[in-house]
Structures are given as structure tokens and as C-alpha cells.
């Protein structure tokens, strides 16, 4: 069973519609379920106040023309009230129609970035897990070494890469010049920057994949492999017919989570490139952040971007889980 199958038809409805009217039925539900509700209450309250409320507020902002200039602010003792007003779906129309000129290029790169990162991370993670999942010497050592990028905080890892990529003093250029090749500007061109952020993100992400798939591999009964071998299955056939189906539950969850995380991956791009970027490497999330915090802050535009990102992800994961559930049954 996977979480995907456990809730076969997830619906984004927040409240079940049975609280309508009838007092006795509410009382009965309360008597029956108050215990469960009490136990989930802390989580619901924290999420409700700190996630859903800001989300609602963001959704409201996205329907206005709020910027730094017309928001409420205090200059010294003088309080200037907000003067922004409701503009309906104008912000969304700007985005969807491509009129702001940024959305589609950013979306395209975000998709490329997500697909590349998830595909490479997953393949490498699976490969490493399969290598580790066999008896050999020094196994613990390899395992600890391979897991290390996950163990150090992301900003430390990114900082290390930034030092190594440095065009004047970085270790990569020392190596390259030592071999006799001309030094490269590793973070110079937009294309190089894109490759660099993908490399760093893969470096940070492989350990999680490896650990998760390793757990999945260990859950596949050895008898299945033995039986397949008895039937004369080649290593490749054993991989496609035993390993891949056996891993499916893990794969489904891990790929979904990692897609969502990568799509919203903020720190790596932001910290690796800092301000030395032309904007070509911005994915939707970092672009929205720039909109909200650099120059004249465009709160409503950033909020609209946020909602669009959220809608894309919700649509994707609904579709993904439906398909995963259908495939499994």
C-alpha cells in the first residue's frame, strides 16, 4: 500500500460538507470523533494560522495592484494608509497571456530544471543504492561518505561549491590549468550558470534518493531474484521485472516529493549565484522572490506568481497521484 493508493481520489476540499445545519448530527460526530480531532488540533491550528491564512492573504493581494509605493507604511510619526485597490484577475491575465514577458521563459526553464534535476538525481540515487545494496567490504564507509552532502546544511554545501567554481581562485580552474587547458569562467555565462546550479542541486539531492531507494531495495524479497534467476532471467531482465516493480511504491512517493521540492528550490539558486545573475537562471520561485524584494517591491505580482506556482503543483500532483493509483490497481 502506498500513500497514493490510501487516498484514492484526493479532493482539495478542506471541510467535509456535513457540518451543515443539523445540530444533533454535529453532536453525534463530535462525541464520536472529538478524540481524533483533539489529537490533530495542534497541527491544524499551526498550519491553519501560519500557512492557510498567509495563503489567503496572498491570494487577496494577487487580486490587487499592491506595490511598495501604495501599501500602508509609517514614515516617522506619519501613518500613510494603503491606497491600492482591487483589480480582479488583471495580474493573472498579465502572467497567463505572457504580456509581462517573463512568465513563459521562466516556466520553460523551471520545467527543464525540474526534469533534469529529478531525472539525474533519481538515476544516480538508484544507481548508488543498487551498488550499496550488495555485500562488500567498506560498505559502511561508502554509505557514510555518500550520505555526507545531505548531512551538512545546504547553505554550507552551496558555499563550498561557490568557492570551488570561483573563476579567479577556484579549485576547478587550478585543476584545469594544471592540465594545460585555459581557465574557464564557470559561473560566467547564463548557460554555465544553469549547468552549475543543476550540478549543485544534484549533489545535494542524491543522498536522499539513495537512502530512500536503498530502503525500497532492501524491502524486495531475495526469493524473487532467486526465482527470476532460476527462470534464466538476465541481469537486465531481473532489473526491469523484479527491481523496478518492487521499487514502484518508493519511486512514486520519492519522485513526487522531489519534483515538488525541486520546483520550489529556493536556496540553491539564490545562494550559489547571489546577485551575479542576468535573471536567466531564475526559476519561477526565485523570480517571484526578486519581484517581491528587489527594486520597487511588487507585492501583488509576486503573490500572483505564488498562486500560479501553487496551482501548477497542485494540478501536477493530483494528476500524478491519480495515474499512480491507476497503475497500481
Amino acid at each position, binding site marked *: 500500500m502506498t500513500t497514493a493508493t490510501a487516498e484514492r481520489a484526493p479532493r482539495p476540499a478542506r471541510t467535509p460538507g456535513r457540518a451543515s445545519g443539523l445540530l444533533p448530527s454535529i453532536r453525534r460526530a463530535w462525541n464520536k470523533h472529538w478524540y481524533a480531532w483533539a489529537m490533530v488540533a495542534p497541527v491544524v491550528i499551526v*498550519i491553519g494560522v501560519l500557512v492557510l491564512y498567509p495563503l489567503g492573504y496572498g491570494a487577496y493581494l494577487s487580486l490587487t495592484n499592491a506595490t511598495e509605493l501604495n501599501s500602508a507604511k509609517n514614515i516617522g510619526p506619519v501613518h500613510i494608509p494603503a491606497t491600492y485597490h482591487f483589480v480582479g484577475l488583471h495580474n493573472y491575465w498579465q502572467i497567463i497571456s505572457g504580456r509581462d514577458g517573463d512568465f513563459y521563459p521562466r516556466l520553460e526553464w523551471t520545467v527543464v530544471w525540474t526534469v533534469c534535476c529529478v531525472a539525474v538525481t533519481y538515476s544516480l540515487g538508484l544507481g548508488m543504492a543498487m551498488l550499496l545494496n550488495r555485500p562488500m567490504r567498506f560498505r559502511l564507509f561508502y554509505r557514510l561518505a555518500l550520505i555526507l552532502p545531505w548531512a551538512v546544511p545546504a547553505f554550507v554545501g552551496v558555499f563550498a561549491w561557490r568557492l570551488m567554481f570561483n573563476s579567479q581562485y577556484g579549485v576547478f580552474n587550478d585543476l584545469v590549468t594544471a592540465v594545460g587547458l585555459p581557465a574557464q569562467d564557470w559561473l560566467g555565462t547564463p548557460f554555465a550558470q544553469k549547468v552549475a546550479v543543476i550540478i549543485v542541486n544534484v549533489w545535494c539531492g542524491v543522498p536522499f534518493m539513495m537512502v530512500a531507494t536503498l*530502503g525500497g531495495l532492501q524491502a524486495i524479497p531475495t526469493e524473487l531474484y532467486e526465482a527470476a534467476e532460476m527462470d534464466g532471467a538476465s541481469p537486465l531482465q531481473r532489473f526491469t521485472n523484479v527491481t523496478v516493480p518492487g521499487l514502484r511504491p518508493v519511486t512514486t512517493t520519492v519522485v513526487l516529493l522531489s519534483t515538488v521540492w525541486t520546483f520550489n528550490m529556493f536556496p540553491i539558486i539564490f545562494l550559489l549565484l547571489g546577485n551575479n545573475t542576468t535573471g536567466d537562471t531564475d526559476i519561477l520561485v526565485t523570480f517571484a522572490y526578486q519581484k517581491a524584494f528587489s527594486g520597487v517591491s511588487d507585492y501583488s505580482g509576486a503573490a500572483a506568481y*505564488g498562486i500560479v506556482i501553487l496551482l501548477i503543483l497542485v494540478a501536477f500532483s493530483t494528476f500524478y497521484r491519480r495515474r499512480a493509483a491507476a497503475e497500481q490497481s
Partner: protein
Amino acid sequence: MSATTPAGARSRGRGERGPAASLALHATLLAASAVAVFPVLWIVFISFGPDNAWQQPGQVLHHLGLANYRFVLLHSSFPRWMLNSVIVAGATMVIGVLIAASAGYAISRMRFPGHRPLMWTFLVTQMFPVAVLIVPLYNLMGRLDLLDTYLGLVLVYCTIAVPFCAWMLKGYFDTIPREIDEAGRVDGLTPFGTFWWLILPLARPGLAVTAFYTFLTAWGEVAYSSQFMSGAHYTLAAGLPTFAGSERANWGAMTAGSVVIAVPAALVFLLVQRHLVTGLTAGGTKG
């Protein structure tokens, strides 16, 4: 068995390899380990040099010293940030794991209205673009007077870590037989008593992993911390970049600071990583 095993190797038992396959296996793993470890070792290496060591890595070996560490630990606000980080991450860990465990248990054992939407909400919160929630959250925190307080930051971190932890713990609780709950009930324990006295002790490995995950989330978070906290309340991740931002960027201090931050996290991580495999699989896959 590796894919490179030749057909003639049939006489070997399962899991045995020829010398060539062994060599290839170890070579691949060594190369991969090197890539994984090198950036971290590099920072450690640079941190032992003088403060401009990153410009002349070749010189580090001739000038080995602890100058960077001395500066960071004795002459900067680093210890203060460290204390803040320990407080915030520790509190996030305790609060986060407690509420995630209780929610995870309820979802695992009880069927109640709101059960499915809740699981769905946990997944959806993973999709929230952090960068966009910051502005409304900032306003909200300001209104609740929680800006620049430990409590405010702890609560924000809980929203990041708790949904994933509740999901993982739910999976973990699912692997504990229901008969144990029933036995507890027969002995007159309340559902919460069962959870507290019987299930929690059994779920210790799962709790350890979630606790650690929560701690690490708070320990390394940058965006919220640098926007919500000021000067004296900076956590490590927010404070560290100020070494590079001051009039004279001190990259040496930054490398030493990074090492001091990474070492405790990495040590604990490597200690609990065995549970991590079981914890993650249980959480991720069992429904």
C-alpha cells in the same frame, strides 16, 4: 550480482563477484564518494589556512593554523548566533515532533471526518513557494508581535517541518501492530494513554529520525531567519553571510564558521542514518 559478470561465472554463488567486477564496483563507489565528500573537505581544508587562503589554496599547507577559528569563536558574534540556533532548533524539534506524532497517530489509527483532507493538506503545504509566503507571514507576525522572537521563528519552522514529519510518523505507526493498541484499551488506557505509554516508546527509531529531520530543517534555514530576526537574534544561517557582507569580506571566517556549523549536524546525522533508511521507507511508502 553486477551486470558485468560474465556468463561463465555461473559457478559462483549469488552475491559473489569476479575480481574485475569487484574492482569496477569499488572504483565506482570510490569515485562517487570522492565527489560527495570533496566540497566538504575542501572547506575544512581552506578553513585551516590564513583568512585569504581561498585565493591561494596551495599556500594553506605552509600556513596551517587556527586563526580563522579563533576569530570566529572568540572575536565575533558567532557564539551568540550558535546559542540562538540551538534554542530555536531545539524548541522546533520538541514542539514539532510532539504535535506531528500526535497528529500522525490519530491519522494512522482513527478514521474521522477530515482525515483525507488533512493528509492532502500535508502534501499541499510542501508545494507552497516559501519565497511567496514570506510577505504575508511577515505582516502576520508583525501583527501578533512575534517578529524577532524565538517563538515566532519556532512556529514558522514547525509549519515547514511538521507536515512531512506527521506523514513519516504516520507511516511508522502503521508498521506497529494494532493489537498493541487493543491490548492497551482492554487494560483501560485512554486512546491518548495508549499513544503515550505504548506506541511512542515503540516508535523510538522513527521519532529519532523525525526529531533529527526537524532539527536540521531549523538549523540550516536561511530565508525566514534573515528576514524575521535582527542583530542579536540572528541564527547561524542568517549570521554567517554577514562575514562576507561587511566592508572587508572575511571568507576565512566564513569557512571556519561553516565547519563549526556542519560538524555537529553531520556527526549526529551519520549516527542516526541507519534509522533513516527504515524511517523514510516506512513513512514514504506504507499507507
